[in-house]
């Protein structure tokens, strides 16, 4: 009961903070940005509050965490209560501390990975749409081929070949993800390159790089951002699934995906421990997508 209660209380706090921050933004934001916040739905302000909270926790992890990241503080599986407010894990490390450091590693790695995937994927996708012809055909066939290989198995192959440092993990997941981004970016860009302003820029004699960067990309942002929201969260899942294969982030670094994996067996006995990292991921997923939905809504201009 206490668990359910505390989860509800935490969600409630985020809602209140979201409301307050929306009110704050409305009154404090510079005049020409006010409309942005004026029509911000409650879900979006809730999402923003959660994201800001996560980022703050991630940055301040060493300050706010009661213990060191891998520090063994006591016996294993201590119940909730001072000084281990969320208990301890199998090795007797403080769960709260692990969650806080997990925010730093998980969110950081997921962000870097997704950003990389988007840089590569959207550049290639837009380029293919812009240039068309053989380049487009070959790139698309190649990406099609890569997409047809199950992501998990492909990652397994690559990670086994290149080893499992954080860097290779980021690169491999980004490479696999970028194929999905490529497809989206290409189809979005195909719509954009038909526009007169692209024709005008081509007639002006602009090079491909500028066309991609200044003319197409800004207009392709809305669907890309929406995809970013989902892809970002899929990275946690990918890391989690890879740790299922023993290929995740190396210990004692805390990341939520692996934490779910490490504690997952407890759930079948009704122990809620694995719900903490899973919930942390879920909350962030929902929050990010609430904000993304709002941005998308704004971009589409569809009135309620």
């Amino acid at each position, binding site marked *: 009961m206490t668990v359910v209660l505390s989860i509800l209380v935490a969600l409630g706090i985020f809602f209140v903070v979201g409301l307050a921050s929306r009110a704050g933004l409305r009154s404090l934001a510079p005049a020409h940005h006010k409309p942005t916040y004026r029509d911000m*739905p409650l*879900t979006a302000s809730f999402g923003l509050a959660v994201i800001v909270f996560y980022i703050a926790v991630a940055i301040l992890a060493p300050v706010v965490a009661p213990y060191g990241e891998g520090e063994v503080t006591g016996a294993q599986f201590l119940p909730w209560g001072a000084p281990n407010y969320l208990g301890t894990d199998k090795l007797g490390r403080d769960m709260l501390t692990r969650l806080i450091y997990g925010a730093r590693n998980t969110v950081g790695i997921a962000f870097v990975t997704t950003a990389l995937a988007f840089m590569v994927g959207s550049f290639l996708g837009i380029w293919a749409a812009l240039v068309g012809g053989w380049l487009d055909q070959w790139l698309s*066939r*190649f990406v*099609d*081929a*890569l*997409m*047809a*290989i*199950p*992501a*998990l*198995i*492909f990652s*397994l*192959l*690559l990670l*086994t*070949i290149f080893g499992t440092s954080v860097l290779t993990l980021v690169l491999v997941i980004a490479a696999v993800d970028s194929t999905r981004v490529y497809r989206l970016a290409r189809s979005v860009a195909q719509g954009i390159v038909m526009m007169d302003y692209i024709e005008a820029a081509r007639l002006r004699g602009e090079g491909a790089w500028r066309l991609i960067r200044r003319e197409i990309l800004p207009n392709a942002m809305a669907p890309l951002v929406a995809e970013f929201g*989902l892809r970002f*969260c899929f990275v*946690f*899942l990918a890391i*989690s*699934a890879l740790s*299922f*294969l023993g290929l995740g982030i190396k210990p004692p670094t805390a990341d939520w*995906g692996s934490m*779910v*994996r490490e504690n*997952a*067996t407890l*759930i*079948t006995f*009704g122990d809620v421990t*694995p719900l903490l990292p*899973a919930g942390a*991921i*879920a909350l*962030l*997923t*929902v929050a990010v*997508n*609430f904000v993304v*939905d709002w941005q998308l809504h704004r971009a*589409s201009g*569809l009135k*309620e």
Partner: protein
Amino acid sequence: MTEIWRMISQRLLLGVLTLFIISVVIFGATELLPGDLARELLGQSATPETLAALREQLGLNESAPVRYWNWLTGVMQGDFGMSMATKMPISELVGTRLGNTLFLAFYAAALAVPFSLLLGVLAALWRNSIFDRASNALALTAISFPEFFVAYILILWLSQSGLFPSMVRITDTTSMGERLYMAFLPALTLTLVVTAHMMRMTRAAIINLLASPYIEMARLKGMSPMRVVLRHAVPNALSPIINVVALNLAYLITGVVVVEVVFVYPGLGQLMIDAVSNRDIAVVQAIALIFAAAYVLLNLLADVLSTITNPRLMHRK
């Protein structure tokens, strides 16, 4: 119709090209994997001589391009060859597993597709209502849980109470009813995993259309909101919906390794991972090609269906 046949044959040709690229990629990747079949078969008991003998016997001493060419010519003649590790014909090894994988995929799809389309349509119909936001948040929560975790939770709720078995044991004599019953939990897990994506896409595709003039026209003709969505929006949103369904079906066929492991389901995904760890390249290749073919065919099917359901493409001027 001729258009469609031309598209199909063109796409099949491209599909073959895709399969070829995949086989090269997979072969290259497995080639780069540390260790080889001989090492895996002999284990550490291998002496340099026995290793060399076995490599000779397995044809591993040929250069990589030659081995690839041998494999490729075999496949071209419809011969996927023998699994080196298990000494069984690959078709036999893969056959029943493929059946199992397809069964689970279509079972899950049969649950997930109607469910998520219904949710998506309702969410679009009642957009920004409590129902919309709640189903959206729940769907997002479901996809943000790792698959094995969803499976464990379902086992906790539905299996430990004795409602459904926690593992699937299918033999040749298992009846269809039993199969459906036993495979319910894995199918449900997969349903939860793919629903969010399909639901969100359906909702987005429909909402995207609701601003179009013909939707306003339908409303101005006095049509009820339900009829506006079902009769006027949905048929035009079919193309993106079909595409996302196809993509998820492909995922259900190719990406369910984790669920197979948790429910002890003898599917292709597990076999492929097994084959990777055994460096049984012919099996890895065969399964990769099956997966890729499924992907290519489903995409093709999606395109054909999109074309058939789009009068602009079906009925040219």
